[in-house]
């Protein structure tokens, strides 16, 4: 009982907290360790994919905001409109000055900007997100190729161990 526990903990101690072993060293790892490395690499790839998705969602929302701004700038002052008070309650109102917009910049701060500045803000944020997305995509593809490589070596090792088939 305690001996099996020992192997479990011992495996954890020797287990890889390393980042990426060089290709030549992959061959030297046992099947157990290869499996652990592959699991960790897969976990990282999934995390990165989630982040990528989050960025894509945020960029889409900013795009919608930017479009709404553009639309708003076309509306004349005094135009009749319906203002949402809740998700199911709209109240009739008239459009006031559409040149001033309140921008949510984060941590509870709102800044009053002109329409032009507001559009510029949306553009800036979208560009920032796009560059983040590209950087993240690079890292994610690299991690995925590492994970694939580990998987290939693992399969080769497994085939080595059962050559009778």
């Amino acid at each position, binding site marked *: 009982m305690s001996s099996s526990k020992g192997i479990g903990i011992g495996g954890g101690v020797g287990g890889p907290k390393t980042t990426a072993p060089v290709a030549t060293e992959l061959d030297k790892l046992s099947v157990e360790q290869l499996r652990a490395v592959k699991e960790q690499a897969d976990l990282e790839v999934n995390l990165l994919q989630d982040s990528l998705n989050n960025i894509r969602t945020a960029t889409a929302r900013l795009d919608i905001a930017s479009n709404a701004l553009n639309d708003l700038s076309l509306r004349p002052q005094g135009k009749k409109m319906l203002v949402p008070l809740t998700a199911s309650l709209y109240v009739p109102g008239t459009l006031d000055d559409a040149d001033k917009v309140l921008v949510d*910049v984060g941590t*509870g701060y709102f*800044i009053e900007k002109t329409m032009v500045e507001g559009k510029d803000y949306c553009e800036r944020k979208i560009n920032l997100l796009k560059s983040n997305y590209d950087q993240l995509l690079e890292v994610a593809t690299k991690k995925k190729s590492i994970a694939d490589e580990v998987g290939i070596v693992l399969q080769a090792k497994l085939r080595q161990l059962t050559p009778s088939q």
Partner: protein
Amino acid sequence: MASSTALRELQRDLENKANDLSKLQKDIAKNHQVRKKYTIQLGENELVLKELELLNEDANVFKLIGPVLVKQDLAEARANVRKRIDYISAELKRLDATLQDLEDKQKSKQETVFKLQQKVQSFQAGKGKA
């Protein structure tokens, strides 16, 4: 007889040390989580500061306090955000120090556990031969 009680003592000691180790690992994981939260907040506050600094002095700044939008002085808003950034950076530094300390403790505990395991195994091997 005496050797089996010694063996049991060793095993109990091993279990205790293993429990300590897993508690350390849980603490390290919690530290990582708090660190992540602070890092995100720091990034957000830095973005806000950048926006605030781009503004003209006469621009209006509002803060959302509960359901109320309250007009704020631009200089005051900048000062508040800067103070928050300093606070979060200090917290992160403190967490880093704690994390380093926890990791060192974890390493030494791992070595202790490993040595104990070896002792237990050699004990059992010795008993088997006798």
